[in-house]
């Protein structure tokens, strides 16, 4: 019997092997659960594991195959979901105490789509509380460690997703990205993270943070996998009023490797301040694109410096409104109190952590009577200026290349103040403000063996070009088969040494 190589096999590999009968979906799930059991104690990627649900979904895939029924494109592929995606019958906390113990009565649109494609939902992974943060340190439950170096953060807010994918504790994960929360953790953990165009993927059933910025997307170990997962989750959903009614192209077909004549924009504002290792990796990446026939175009996005203040107004303002629903009435935790208003305030005071409280306060301040025009409206106007910068830039280039982050993964506790933490997102924010598609793809390692991410930004709904160029970067300067060294000493024998049955594989 074939033994699953969960560190290396891609989404496509797993689906193909199951379809070909080389391995069963049941065994993939058992091996995945065993690997989680042996490694996640060190990493802390998962918040909830669903062995029964995963085994049932895998059994259904194996049953379908046995009777010759059609298998979906993700049949038997083990996937972990960021805990802001609601899952019917499976606890969803958004990394917050206020939702502790909540069992949602429905699946998010993207979860429905994954299940329809045959994917096996293994469990829910950690994140910053309500997706507010850049290191997953704001989770109310526990920290998640970076599999490349256990002293470093995995990034955030989708840090459980990036760590689980990098460590082979799932084949792919869905995260959400409001200001970089897919791309930044992908860069820190050496995986691919794609934020689609705003409206490309339905937000129905996503725990809302900032509704005009939030978008769901895949974190995967390869660009082809990101394309495959995006194909499964993208498309129109009438339940999300911002969902785009646009055809979903076959993204996997876009990965031709052909970029001759393609114009790659380098915005000067994104190359001002960064670590030397990051600068060198980006230079190698740009050169690799030139070597394959692309043309580099120097350009300017002059309103870039306003992205941080605009983002940290718009996002908290929308969050303060969205999070008003957590009041202890219909679901989640409730604090005892003598009257209703007191109950709201005590429930929220006890249930939210420091960063969430900070952002609710900031947003409430910005939206109060008399301040709306000065703050929220002003920030939304600045978004238009940022968007116009990109519109102009895309007249001269087809895709924009930048670093994903100014540094590689930082140490726990390294960002002492909120503003310092916010500045870690400086390169990823404008993509959300302008609603564009963006990807982070690994483009090398630092001298300390920490992954570096290259970011590509595309025209609205042009995920295909972003993926195509990312595929070229992956092939030229990507990490190849290199996997996180921090786990090598703890590898489960069963997953890496064919022929050796591991004892006690039950998680």
């Amino acid at each position, binding site marked *: 019997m074939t033994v699953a190589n969960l560190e290396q096999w891609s989404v496509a590999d797993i689906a193909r092997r199951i379809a070909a009968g080389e391995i069963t979906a049941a065994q993939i799930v058992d091996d995945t659960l065993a690997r989680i059991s042996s490694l996640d104690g060190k990493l802390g990627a998962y918040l909830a594991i669903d062995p029964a649900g995963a085994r049932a979904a895998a059994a259904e895939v194996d049953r379908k195959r046995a009777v010759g029924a059609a298998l979906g494109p993700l049949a038997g592929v083990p996937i972990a979901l960021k805990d802001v995606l609601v899952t019917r019958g499976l606890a969803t906390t958004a990394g917050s105490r206020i939702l502790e113990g909540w*069992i949602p*009565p429905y699946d998010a649109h993207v979860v429905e789509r994954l299940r329809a494609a045959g994917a096996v939902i293994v469990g829910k992974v950690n994140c910053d509380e309500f997706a507010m943060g850049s290191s997953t340190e704001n989770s109310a439950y526990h920290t998640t460690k970076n599999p490349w170096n256990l002293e470093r953060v995995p990034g955030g807010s989708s840090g459980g997703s990036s760590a689980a994918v990098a460590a082979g504790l799932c084949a792919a994960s869905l995260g959400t990205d409001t200001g970089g929360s897919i791309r930044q953790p992908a860069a820190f953990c050496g995986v691919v993270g794609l934020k689609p*165009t705003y*409206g490309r993927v339905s937000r129905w059933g996503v725990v809302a943070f900032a509704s*005009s910025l939030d978008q769901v997307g895949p974190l995967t170990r390869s660009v082809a996998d990101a394309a495959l997962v995006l194909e499964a989750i993208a498309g129109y959903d*009438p339940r999300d*009023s*911002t969902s*785009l009614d*646009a055809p979903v192209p076959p993204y996997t077909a876009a990965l031709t490797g052909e970029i001759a004549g393609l114009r790659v924009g380098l915005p000067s504002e994104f190359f001002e301040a960064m670590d030397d290792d990051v600068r060198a990796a980006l230079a190698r990446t740009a050169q690799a694109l030139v070597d394959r026939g692309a043309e580099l175009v120097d350009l300017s996005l002059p309103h870039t*410096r*306003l992205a*941080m*203040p*605009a983002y*940290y*107004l718009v996002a908290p303002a929308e969050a303060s409104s969205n999070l008003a629903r957590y*009041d202890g*009435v*219909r679901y989640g*935790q409730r604090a005892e*109190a*003598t*009257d*209703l*208003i*007191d109950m*709201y*305030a*005590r429930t*929220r*005071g*006890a249930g*939210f952590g*420091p960063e969430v*409280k*900070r952002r*609710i*306060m*900031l947003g*409430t*301040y910005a939206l*109060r009577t008399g301040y709306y025009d000065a*703050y929220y409206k*002003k*920030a*939304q*106007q*600045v*978004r*238009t*200026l940022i*968007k116009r910068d990109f519109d102009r830039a895309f007249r001269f280039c087809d895709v924009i290349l930048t670093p994903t982050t100014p540094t590689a993964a930082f140490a726990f506790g390294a960002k002492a*103040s*909120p*503003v310092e933490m916010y500045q870690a997102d400086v390169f990823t924010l404008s993509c959300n403000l*302008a*609603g*564009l598609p963006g990807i982070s793809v690994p483009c090398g390692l630092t001298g300390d063996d920490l992954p570096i991410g290259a970011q590509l930004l595309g025209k*609205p709904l042009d995920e295909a070009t972003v993926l195509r160029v990312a595929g070229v970067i992956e092939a030229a300067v990507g990490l190849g088969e290199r996997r996180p060294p921090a786990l090598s000493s703890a590898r489960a024998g069963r997953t890496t040494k064919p022929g050796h049955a591991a004892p006690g594989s039950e998680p």
Partner: protein
Amino acid sequence: MALTRTEVEEIATLARLYLAPDELDRIQLELGVILAHFEELAAVDTTGIPAMTHAVPMDLRLRHDIAEPSLSQDEALAAAPRKADGLIIVPSSIAPPGRTGSEP
């Protein structure tokens, strides 16, 4: 840009968010620092610039006012912290005599 303690307490009341005295101290300080970073926005000339709504131009879509399948009453109530007879139970919405404000 400094906020007064009274302003911070007012915002907490508006946000229906109980904050302990040490949390109020910290947030007063942090909000001041964060708001200072927003000063840059005020200096930008946005005369005649529309507020952004969506990356791709689209009309606001409204669905027809027709009932569609949804959660059953039992499902909708399943997670409520307190319920009885098919209803969600909450404390009185009128403060008991002698209490006027919403501050815990």
